[in-house]
């Protein structure tokens, strides 16, 4: 499709970490005006490849050419100067500074020696407008949701007039609207000749935006393909090295609505539960063994509702009863005592403990629940860790691995394992499959469905509507921080839910 010379030409790249060969003689090239997707399972080496290109990790062997010349850099700052602009997988921004600073720092407008704050905010607003994002550039970044933070990171990267733009899972917490906004921007950058590297576990997105694909498996190159010339099924096969059957298994499995036929009281019932400035009063009931999906756009109040149910935020109105008795959950710990567990969308700041091992992270909540003076016996810890490593296919399968050294998707699996290990009666999952590859995602969905079958209640939040529809018995639609619909999931289509989300009409 192109006869031009590549802008980026990486050959024979190898990188090893203690005990892991993350990349083994991999080739990768990027052409101007082309979107090139890097594909592979969790832990395949995608992010490592990117960090090799941006100078975060030194390469053990191989060569990197930029515009035909060897790229000699020692860190992200020089990569930026050389025209490589990057959005890393986890949002790497400064939550204590303003949105404007996060977009502009490094090339901030100045008047004399001083930062010109007014010009900086004005420029930031312009860039945010380009992404159709209406937030106050002077507000502190940490006050925004993860999705907004992800958009801010993207805004930062696209503002530089870069030759090469790298986006490592930029869409993992965005929903449809934001994704199409992003794709619009990507297309216009492409037109102007920028070479774009895109990583996503959403195949639809990959097929929609990319021209070329490179597949990695276990740190090795499988091959480079033109998107038009490879079928999805082939691609998945190349990524995981075998066919997946589980996916279809679950598809539209009969899900009887539980709430209607149930005689019992719901396990959790919220009446007018709300919090000023966060979410309007909501009625919600979740029965035993029921999966309730929360659907809605970014900022519609899904996470806020989850936080109220789990004691992460305190409601200031309404009532909550658990197992038929009124309860007040003031802390996540109290929620845990009431057998309610909450897995946060923000795994980096509210989830995993980066410096602990996989085993410690998995048993953490269970240990907290038992109390710190009753240590879980070492043997039991090992068993737990081993069983979840196997069940969720955590890689490397080493309970002693330090979590920060795991790939993003594998970190997410560890977080999930922690809450599953508690065996709660209500499990609140906020974007549990964020950044998780196709195969593992199907496994996780199956696991959640099985647990519900065995009587666990689940509140399930995901930006991916298909996933919500596939799992839920009932769907609660949120909009503008209000509940706008509560529908039984019988033959509901994505389109119908989308309409509800958009118009908020009662069903």
């Amino acid at each position, binding site marked *: 499709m192109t006869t031009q010379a590549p802008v980026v030409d990486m050959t024979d790249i190898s990188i090893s970490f203690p005990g892991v060969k993350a990349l083994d003689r991999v080739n990768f090239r990027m052409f101007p005006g082309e979107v090139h997707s890097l594909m592979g399972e969790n832990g395949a080496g995608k992010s490592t490849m990117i960090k090799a290109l941006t100078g975060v990790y030194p390469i053990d062997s191989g060569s990197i050419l930029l515009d035909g010349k060897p790229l000699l850099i020692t*860190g992200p*700052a020089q990569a930026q100067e050389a025209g490589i602009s990057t959005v890393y997988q986890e949002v*790497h921004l*400064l939550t*204590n500074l303003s949105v404007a*600073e996060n977009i502009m720092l490094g090339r901030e407008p100045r008047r004399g020696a001083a*930062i010109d704050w007014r010009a900086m905010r004005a420029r930031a607003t312009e860039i945010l407008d380009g992404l159709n994002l*209406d937030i106050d550039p002077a507000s502190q970044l940490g*006050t925004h949701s993860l999705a907004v933070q992800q958009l801010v990171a993207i805004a930062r990267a696209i503002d530089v007039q870069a030759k090469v733009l790298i986006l490592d899972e930029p869409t993992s917490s965005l929903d449809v609207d934001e994704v199409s906004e992003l794709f619009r921007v990507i297309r216009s950058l492409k037109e102007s000749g920028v070479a774009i590297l895109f990583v996503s576990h959403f195949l639809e997105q990959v097929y929609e935006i990319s021209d070329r694909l490179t597949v990695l498996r276990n740190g090795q190159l499988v091959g480079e393909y033109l998107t038009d010339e490879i079928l999805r099924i082939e691609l998945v096969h190349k990524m995981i090295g075998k066919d997946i059957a589980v996916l279809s298994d679950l598809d539209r499995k009969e899900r009887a609505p539980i709430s209607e036929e149930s005689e019992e009281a719901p396990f959790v019932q919220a009446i007018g539960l709300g919090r000023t400035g966060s979410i309007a009063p909501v009625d919600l009931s979740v029965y035993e063994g029921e999966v309730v999906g929360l659907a809605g756009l970014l900022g519609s*109040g899904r996470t806020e509702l989850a936080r109220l149910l789990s004691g992460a935020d305190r409601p200031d109105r309404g009532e909550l009863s658990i197992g038929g008795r009124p309860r007040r959950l003031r802390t996540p710990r109290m929620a845990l005592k009431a057998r309610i567990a909450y897995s946060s969308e923000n795994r980096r700041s509210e989830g995993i403990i980066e410096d602990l091992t996989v085993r410690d992270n998995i048993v953490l909540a269970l240990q907290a629940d038992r109390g710190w003076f009753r240590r879980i016996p070492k043997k039991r810890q090992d068993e737990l860790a081993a069983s979840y490593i196997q069940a969720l296919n955590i890689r490397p399968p080493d309970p002693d691995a330090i979590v920060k050294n795991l790939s993003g998707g594998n970190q997410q699996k560890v977080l999930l394992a922690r809450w599953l290990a508690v065996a709660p009666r209500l499990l609140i999952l906020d974007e549990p499959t964020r950044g998780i590859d196709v195969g593992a995602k199907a496994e996780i969905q199956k696991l959640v469905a099985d647990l519900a079958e065995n009587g666990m209640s689940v509140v399930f939040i995901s930006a991916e509507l298909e996933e919500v529809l596939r799992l839920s018995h009932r769907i609660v639609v949120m909009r503008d921080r209000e509940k706008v619909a509560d529908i039984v999931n019988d033959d509901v289509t994505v389109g119908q839910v989308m309409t509800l989300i958009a118009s908020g009409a009662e069903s």
Partner: protein
Amino acid sequence: MSIRTIDKPTARPGFVRPRGRFNLGSRYTPVLVTLILLIAMWGVGATRYRGFLSVQMLLNLLIDNSFLLVLVVGMTFVILTGGIDLSVGSVVALSTMIAAFLLRAGWPPLVVIAIVLVVGSTLGMLVGLVIHYFEIQPFIATLAAMFLARGLCYVISLNSISITDPFFVDMAQTRIPLGPGLAITPSVIIAVIVVAIAFFVLHYTRTGRTVYGIGNGGQSAMLMGLPVARTRVLVYVISGFCSALGGVLFTFYTLSGYSLTAVGMELDAIAAVVIGGTLLTGGSGFILGSVLGVLVLGIIQTIISFEGTLSSWWTKIVIGALLLVFIVLQRLLTTLRR
């Protein structure tokens, strides 16, 4: 307009207002609390003691604490990055010793001051390099520097050396009139200039914003391509420089050099920074807060000296209690924001 609404009926909920969980305004709350405390203490003093209400009393606060003001500037930079500098007091002592020793040997005063400043900055740079490149805890690295500087004092002399150099004596005795019956010392002017420069650097330069960025923790600042290495070393250079300058101002105040002087002064500086609302974990705080912190410490001392019957140890006790209150307060503010 109405067409747009139909076009895009959802109007992007939630983008207009951030979640209610955090409150932007509360970034300034600790500083405001300190300010209120300062005013309250001044008010209490004014009702109890005659002469407390005078403007000169406030100016004396600045005069007596000008060296501490300079020290907290350096300390604020360091703490904003999430570090700590324990060597401050020792470097002050070393500076007084070098100054007194060289002056006694007949060196010209301006050269002496320059040497002192260079020594302090160099020591700070060494500490910074060790902290950044060998990934040593700032606590440990600066503790080592603290012992080193104190040790060097003893190498110079075990006894107090008094200063008779006319320039230094002048600096100690000059009063710059500000109006009828009001005056300040040159040291106050120096301190104010240092604070102003620090304010500018922290709020109007990339270096300053990087200081805050480093304090946010993690790899983010590095991955954003900000000059992390340079800045992290720089804050210790700044702290070393400020310690040395503080030492010079201290000699203007005491007109002597003594190995055992300024023991524990780093803790006063840290206390002032914390009372001024800067988080010890880094990334949040203001230089003007630290200035208020110094004034709070100063006013406690003044009240206790006005009281007359109380021993000066009460100063320490009150400061200790206040520190505790402030740390608890910050904790509360951060959890209340949830």
